[in-house]
């Protein structure tokens, strides 16, 4: 039988074994060692083109599989297997330890899936930044008598990254859809008109998020290119002034 298998990434030899057991529809409590070992080694073979050091853990398990397989081939077992009543002695089964390991691992693998679902459920609930109470007074921080925990630092840092995500979008995303360069160009010209033909370069950049500032800057460049405005600077690092291009004295190259 030939079929295509799309394999997910394996998390280790036990994960690979579970995958094979599942795919081959093997009963985990009665693993056909020969078949499973062959399949496992076939997979290892394909993996061998990859990094060897990452394979070492897989190889250790391969050795275990082979050992179990050979133990099961011992004639004592075959003889007993013919006799139904001797099944009570299956606690001696060389596969027991492996089965126990697989089952234990599987439990946590499934718990991981549950955790992931739980995290997904949680992720549809958004919360807000704490309100700013600084205008009412200092937050009182009690004296730090005990040892503090480094992991609190990490927690604080991660929380801050989360908060930044909440803070950024509300300004940025909305702005982007709203203000185009051409709109901003009109806006700048209106400001210039109101202020009698000139204004501080900096004043155009006083508010807005990064997107907004970039749009403002692009608009200025475009206006300069069209010679609608001229940007003047008295000396290096001096204040820059934006004026409407009316003032002929500076020309408009």
């Amino acid at each position: 039988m030939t079929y295509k298998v799309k394999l997910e990434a394996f998390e280790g030899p036990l994960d690979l074994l579970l995958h094979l057991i599942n795919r081959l529809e093997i009963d985990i409590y009665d693993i056909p060692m020969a078949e499973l070992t062959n399949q496992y080694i076939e997979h290892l073979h394909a993996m061998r083109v990859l990094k060897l050091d990452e394979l070492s853990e897989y190889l250790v398990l391969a050795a275990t599989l082979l050992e179990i397989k050979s133990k099961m081939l011992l004639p004592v077992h075959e003889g007993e297997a013919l006799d139904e009543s001797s099944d009570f002695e299956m606690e001696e089964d060389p596969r027991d330890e492996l089965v126990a390991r697989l089952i234990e691992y599987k439990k946590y693998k499934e718990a991981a899936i549950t955790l992931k679902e739980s995290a997904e459920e949680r992720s549809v609930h958004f919360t807000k930044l704490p309100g700013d109470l600084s205008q009412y007074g200092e937050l009182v921080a009690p004296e730090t008598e005990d040892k503090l925990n480094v992991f609190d630092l990490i927690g604080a840092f991660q929380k801050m990254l989360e908060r930044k995500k909440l803070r950024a979008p509300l300004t940025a995303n909305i702005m982007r859809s709203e203000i185009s360069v051409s709109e901003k160009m009109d806006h700048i010209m209106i400001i210039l008109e109101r202020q009698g033909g000139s204004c501080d370069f900096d004043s155009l950049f006083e508010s807005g998020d990064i997107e907004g500032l970039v749009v403002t800057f692009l608009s200025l460049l475009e206006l300069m290119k069209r010679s609608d405005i001229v940007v003047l600077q008295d000396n290096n690092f001096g204040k820059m002034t934006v004026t409407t291009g009316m003032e002929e004295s500076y020309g408009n190259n």
Partner: protein
Amino acid sequence: METIDDRIIGMLESFLFIAGDDGLTLKNISTLLQTDEESAVIIAEQLRLNYENRSCAGITLRLYGGSYRLVTKAEYADDILRMLENPTRNPITQASLEVLAIIAYKQPVTRVEIDDLRGVKSDGPIQTLVAKGFIMEKGRLESSGRPILYGTTELFLDKFGLESIDMLPPLVDSDEEPFGDTDLFMSKFQEAFEMTDEGGNND
């Protein structure tokens, strides 16, 4: 008690609103409302019910990691994602999830125990989980090498929507029966009567 004063519910809402994602513990709430914790639970539950019963409410109350937080209702998630800059959710790899599950259920636990359970080295995932603030050192094992014992953090509980570590769903085996050794034996016993061939590939 039968009728909770409207004003105290409003007060709790205002506190929770200010606290935002810091949330408030039951202790915080009872201190702030100047009441005992038992009453605080009842008031919080009434606030939650108010939100749930009001279809025009965009927010509701949740308890994560021991802290009550106001959060937006799930039904608006897509609308909110629309306005978020970078709606990609924090990806966590399968390996990290496995390690996290082991730590959550077996804590405190050493790296070696985790490695043994998974059959692979778990240094990488552990490092990631520490950096994400989901796990932390909970002391050292008093044995040779004094290995670090790991446990989960409150941030883990928050991000995974758990009220407390006791609220983790019980570990289950994929088969319906949560079986011990006896059951393992019994199922083997049964199988032995059903079929004896090693191949088992009868499809």
